């Protein structure tokens, strides 16, 4: 607007000067913008790289005469040395550890979130939040060590050494639950904190107790955020590697017994690639096929959680 007014001024002298006020084309500016755009594109390259490499090597795997897709998805044995490649034993143990982890993390995580957001005084909050952050920052290998050297002996003492194996999915799942707890608690707490105060006050105005306000008003209002947190937690648990690699045992095992050792998808990838893996072996290709399954499952979960947040978010003003 300003520019137009200047140009409309009849002064001859000024018009000549105004030419220099025009935006000059600056090559350096365009160059910088181009470089920054490239940096932005890098994330696209990464995704493309993941999809391309996983897809390509997995395709090679399924083209091998020993492998077929149907058997891969439904076979109950993963024994590469006799050419049996059924992912079910790996998938069930992933499912088992994830279920145990979520049985711990969902109730505990939600309760901690509700406590922090609704019940705790400011001092208690300022004390507890950093603890949760510290828990969230501990490397997963440390949790793995904890599972193997603390939880497993504890389970073996309580339930019996002949029932619980040294390597078992139960202790891996339990510790994974502790690992997933902080993120679930902290995302849920954000969702609870976003529920406006007026809703709570309205509840109290009707004579509701604190418990009723929390469970019948605040929790339902924050449900979209909480579901997103839970789904993200499931996705984390499925992709979690070091705890199961250390504590859940080596060797695929088609069982739903949490006291027996069984290798998960991630655990299998780590064990196979831990040795000196030769590039053209079927083992090498198989980790890409398992990786592809893992990637697709976690990606779907992440997208679903984003969709839930978008679709069901209650907007208050």
């Amino acid at each position, binding site marked *: 607007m300003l520019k137009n007014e200047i140009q409309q001024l009849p002064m001859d002298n000024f018009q000549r000067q105004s030419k220099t006020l025009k935006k000059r084309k*600056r090559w*350096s500016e365009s160059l*910088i*913008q181009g*470089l*920054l*755009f490239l*940096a*932005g594109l890098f*994330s696209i390259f*990464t995704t493309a*790289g*993941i999809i391309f*490499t*996983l897809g390509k*090597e997995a395709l090679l795997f399924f083209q091998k005469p020993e492998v077929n897709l149907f058997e891969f998805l439904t076979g109950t044995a993963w024994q590469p040395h006799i050419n049996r490649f059924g992912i079910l034993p790996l998938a069930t143990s992933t499912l088992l550890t994830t279920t145990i982890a979520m049985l711990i993390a969902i109730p*505990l995580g939600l*309760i901690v979130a509700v*406590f*922090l957001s609704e*019940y*705790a005084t400011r001092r208690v909050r300022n004390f*507890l939040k950093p603890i*949760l952050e*510290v828990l969230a*920052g*501990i*490397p997963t*290998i*440390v*949790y*793995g*060590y904890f599972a193997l*050297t*603390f939880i497993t002996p504890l389970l073996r003492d309580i339930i019996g050494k002949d029932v619980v194996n040294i390597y078992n999915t139960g202790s891996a799942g339990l510790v994974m639950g*502790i690992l997933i707890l902080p993120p679930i608690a902290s995302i849920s707490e954000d969702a609870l904190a976003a529920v406006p105060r007026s809703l709570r006050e309205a509840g109290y105005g009707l004579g509701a*107790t*604190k*418990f009723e306000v929390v469970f019948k008003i605040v929790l339902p209002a924050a449900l979209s955020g909480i579901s997103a947190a839970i789904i993200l937690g499931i*996705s984390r648990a499925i*992709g*979690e*590697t*070091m705890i199961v*690699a*250390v504590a859940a045992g080596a060797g695929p095992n088609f069982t739903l017994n949490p006291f027996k050792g069984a290798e998960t998808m991630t655990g299998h*990838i*780590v064990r196979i*690639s*831990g040795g000196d*893996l030769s590039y053209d072996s079927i083992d090498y290709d198989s*980790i*890409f096929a398992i*990786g592809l399954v*893992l*990637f697709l499952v*976690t*990606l779907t979960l*992440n997208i679903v959680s*984003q969709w839930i947040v978008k679709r069901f978010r209650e907007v208050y003003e």
Partner: protein
Amino acid sequence: MIQKTKVSRSMFDHNFAVRTNQGKTWHVIFLLVTIIAIISLTLLIFNIVDSVFGYVVINTRVDPATLMVDGVALEDQTKEQMVTTLQKNLSRGAFNKLNNEKDFTNRTRDEVLALVEERILKYEVLESWSLADSLLNKDAILTEYNTLITENPRAELKFISWLRWTRLVRPQSSEVATAGIRTAILGSLWTILITIVFAFPVGVGAAIYLEEYARDNWVNRVIQTNINNLAGVPSIIYGILGLAIFVRALEPLTSGSLFGLVDPTTANGRTILSAGLTLGLLVLPLIIINSQEAIRAVPQSLRNAGYGLGATKWQVTWAHVLPNALPGVLTGLILAVSRAIGETAPLVVVGASTAISFDPTSVFSKFTTLPIQIYQWTARPQPEWQHLASAAILVLLVLLLGLNAVAIVLRNKLSRKY
């Protein structure tokens, strides 16, 4: 006509108590569960510390007294005296082999001492106890020691800390008594350096693009959604990506053979460079998201002031937006670094070496890192290696705690209020 009912206390009384009690019960449950969560953290720390200190029974194959030279104990001898001891006690071939690996004149006194302990003394841990056992069951330990000493007359009962200064400065070894984490610490530092050099500029650049330059069109929306999705991809997938791209496809580059720096026959892509780049890809979304938040928090008025003075877009970004966003950007970087330092799974997949005892010399060296070392020691069945793993965990946690403390200080010191 509306029937007026008198509201009386009794209408509420029948369930008022129930409702109140319900609330109180749940309050207690909330509190209990939160306490349980804290206890689990305490247990985790306790479990590690419990394993770092404690009694051990150590046996040596040779009586240390026989290694005294001129009445000077082994620990106080000079390097030359120890080399002579080595020469006396090892076969000629074994001694020459050691000399060929690394010349004795180039070895430090500590390295030679470690060799004497490893090759001649041969410390052997017969039995080890946790801290709790050491404090509470002293009698049982003594009984066991007495049975052990009948078979091993030189066995010694000592209260030790598995984490000692020598553990930090000594390289990895196959003997539990002399193994250290020097190689692993150096490997971690080198790897992190590569990660930062790669991910920091790219990440901040992407954040600047998305916040300052990008228009709201589909390309930029795809980039943004993609970054959010990448943040949720399991770390092991990045390991597989690194294995296929950096280790295999870019092998000439990542192994260093392209530059003629290494022997092409033995070189492979499982190097510090590959590891660092893989971790770089892993933390990239984290750096971008944190930097975006920091840049977004810079008030628009600052930018407008810059434009008002005739500055170009990049001048405004470089001179006004970035300096003001710096505390947030750096905090994000530190969080990304602490994530990268603790990562294990992708590095195992990329191909960390199981046993290397020499310091990395360039980005094309084979690598091991602190978490990898912890993983390998934890996975061994003998309990004494797990003591060592716990000592390494303590180092890792102290490192991470330090980093987080720096992040908090940065956030508080540098952050400005508008």
